[in-house]
Every structure is written in structure tokens, then in C-alpha cells.
């Protein structure tokens, strides 16, 4: 199970990749494996505002449908339209081609992205998936 060290995570199994004030979001390999084959992804509308910890979309697999939570606050600037035609990218490449949406996050005082303080490190997220079995 891959948990890239450079990413941040949520207990709801989203990952965040931050570059400047741009945050890319997807779901983890662990989540994709638990869901099984993903058949439909509903993403937030570009231009809409998302709030950390709140549902902003849905991930539907053969067996279940789950809410997609935003890990950060900000404005959605782009969504992965490839997933409309090929939602299986979420299973095949959850951290790369299976990304879901990008958010412009407000700056903190130092010019970095202002992220919620409770995002998990890779080590913390891995611990969480192990305790979940």
C-alpha cells in the first residue's frame, strides 16, 4: 500500500498536495482499494467554495457510494474531467492521474497556503489505516 511521504492526509482518506497556494486533492490508494472499482465521481463545480471537513462530492463504486470531503478551505479552480470518462483512474493511479480537484487556498502570514492544522502526515495516516485493519 503506497502512502507518499510528501502528501498530507485526512482521516476520511483524502490526500492533499500543496504547491504555493494551490492544493490538489484525491483519495488514497487505501480508500480506492476499500471501495473497489470506482464507477462514478461527482466533483465540486469550478468556482465554488469548499470547506475543510465538509462533503463536496461523491465517489461511487460497484458496491457503495461515499461522500468526498474537502481537506482544505478555498475556491475550486479546476477539476479532473478525465474522471468523467474513466473513473477507474482513481483505482489505477490514485495519486497521479486519479486526482480529483484543485483548490486555491488563502495565504497564511508567510506567503504559504493556510492549511487546517489537523491534516495528517504520511506516517500518521499509515498508522490510522493499520489500526483500521
Amino acid at each position, binding site marked *: 500500500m503506497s502512502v507518499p511521504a510528501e502528501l498530507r492526509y485526512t482521516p476520511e482518506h483524502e490526500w492533499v498536495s500543496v504547491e504555493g497556494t494551490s492544493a490538489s486533492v484525491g483519495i488514497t490508494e487505501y480508500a480506492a*482499494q*476499500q471501495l*473497489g*472499482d470506482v*464507477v*462514478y465521481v461527482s466533483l465540486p463545480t469550478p468556482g465554488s467554495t469548499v470547506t475543510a471537513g465538509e462533503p463536496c462530492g*461523491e465517489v*461511487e463504486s*460497484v*458496491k457503495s*457510494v461515499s461522500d468526498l470531503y474537502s481537506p482544505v478551505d478555498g475556491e475550486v479552480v479546476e477539476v479532473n474531467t478525465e474522471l468523467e470518462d474513466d*473513473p*477507474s483512474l482513481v*483505482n489505477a493511479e490514485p495519486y497521479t492521474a486519479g486526482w480529483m480537484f484543485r483548490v486555491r487556498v488563502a495565504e497564511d502570514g508567510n506567503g504559504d497556503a493556510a492549511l487546517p492544522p489537523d491534516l495528517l502526515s504520511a506516517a500518521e495516516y499509515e498508522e490510522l489505516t493499520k489500526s483500521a485493519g
Partner: protein
Amino acid sequence: MHAVHERLGATMTAFAGWQMPLRYASETAEHLAVRRAAGLFDLSHMGEIAVRGLGAGAAMDYALIGQLSALRPGRARYTMICADDGGVLDDLVVYRLGEEEFLVIANASNTSVVFEALVARTAGFDARVTDATSDYALVAIQGPESAGILAPLAGGLDLAAMKYYAGGFGSVAGRSAWVARTGYTGEDGFEVFCQPADAVIVWDALLARGAPAGLVPAGLAARDTLRLEAGMPLYGNELGPDVTPFEAGLGRVVKFDKPGDFVGREALAARASSGPRKRLAGLTIESRRIARHGYPVLADGDGLAGGSGGVVPPGRHVGAVTSGAPSPTLGVPIAMAYLDPDVGADQALSVGIRGAAVPAKLTDLPFYRRRQ
């Protein structure tokens, strides 16, 4: 078998007190392997109930809605056990192993209900009922390559001559087994009932022999989408105590012309003459979203639209989805649903999928039929 599934990387799921493989890798790939080559299923959770005795045939005729006394030894039949009011307690496959011996295959969640009902209903007959679930493991090989994979491993069985819904005693990988040409996938295939202690040997031998031909281990998730494409009902979804076989479109399974009384006859005869209260239909969903169990089916264009924007979209409720999944074979989501009997073939329908009315098209069952 648990260690075997773990070694194969299965995601396990709790089901009726059993830990069973849900999928090994991709349920879609497993599904397609069964349609194109073959899949191997561990179905040891299924219930096996033995009914033996000189009066076993007459006892089965009284206890079930089919005429099992007319079944020849070595043959199988799909049938049901109903309550006095005609409601379905379970659907069953019954094998006649010998003149005085039947093996009843029940759904895992219903094994004790079926066992207790059979004990009670056969009390006046010369028949003994035994819950033999722990005496059998069940390994199913399903798909067009099944016969070719199984034949070199089978002893004492003429698989080429074995008809659909027939079976025989023999061996697989040197282990004694009852092997039958039955299944729940809409494909040709075989079910191997062996001793639990032999299950790993049978499984490993079939997997090794079949892998070059494209056989893969397949889990319960693929089994569910396979049976849905084949239009086969699942207890708890399409079948339950609140429906009779007539609502499920399976009235032909009720054998009114068999000799003697049977449990549920009066209620079923009344239902047969008054017509079903609802009918099971197939739907093709015009979206990528899945119409799942319990979602409402709506009739559009009735002038009753008053969209609240809430959970239930506008439209007149004309039914409810019982099973839904993406169809790997057809490439679109499909569903089965119970609809009001007056819904016409040309009625525009939609399914309420979490607040949105998604168009759906009435589709003849089964969605998929194998080439003979």
C-alpha cells in the same frame, strides 16, 4: 480456505456469520473473466441440508413449491420454500443425489430458517432432515472455459455428457465430490461439493490448471453483478417474505398440479388468480450512477412535478429498485426493480438517485444471455 484467500490478496467481508472473499483485485475484471474465460468461487457459506428416507420425495413435495418427487436421481431443480401466506422464505437449488436422498442448497443467511421449516414440514413423512452445511465445502467454476479446465482433473465423471442442471458423484483432483452443472452467473459452469478438508486441494488444483486458460479467483462482488446481468433474483433483494413467486415473475416454479397438498398452496393459488401486486422489471440507467437497492422509481410527465430540491425528486412513485450495479458486459448501469403492475412498456421512467431524477429505460430480463 481463509488462508488461501488472504494469500491471494482478497478483501474479505462478513456475510451471515462467515468471512467470505468480496473481491481479489478488481470485481469488474473478475466479472469479465467469468464471461470470457472462467472464474473460481469459494461458496462454502451456502447452506446444505440433506433430506433422506423412503418418503423423502413426498416430504419435499409437501415442504416446497416444486415437484421434487418427479426429479430423477442425478438431476437438479431450482425451487422455493414458501410460508403459509405464499411469501418466499428462500429460493433453493435441490439435487436428487439418489432415489431416497435430496440435497437442498439454501442461502447462507437462511440456512437455519430452511432447516427448521423442513424439519417441521417433514414430521409426518418417512424422511430425516440433517443440516449438512459443515460437511461440505463448495467451490464453483463458472465460465465458458469451465468444462475444459475441470475435465482433466475430474475422475469418474463424463462432463461432456453432463447436462445443465445435472450432476454426479466422482472426484476432483483425487478428492471425492458431488459435481453438478449448475451456477448463479448466467454462464456454463460447475459446482463442486467436497469435504471441507479437501477444499484447498480442489481449489488450488483448479486454479493452477485454469490460470493459463484465463481462470481467476472471483469474489462475491462479481457474483452479484453476474447474477444481476443474468436476471437471477437474490433473496433479500428481489425475494423475501413480502413477495410471492408471482411478483418475481417466477410463477412457473409453483407446481399446482403435483399430487397432494403443499405449504402455501391456498395463498399461492389465490395470488395466481388475482395477479401479482407488483412486477419485477429490468431497468437500464442512462447515467454512470448506480440505482441502488431501495431507490425510488418515478414516472415522469404526470404533471405532479413539484421539485422540492430535497432528497426525493419530483414524479409519481411507481416502484423501488431491488438490485443495481454497473454492468461490465453492457457498459451501463443496470437494475432490477419492483414496479406497479399498471406501469406500461412505453412509460417514461426515472430513478431517484440521491435527490436527482436519472432517466431509466425498461429493459427485458435477462440483461445478458449466453450464446448456447
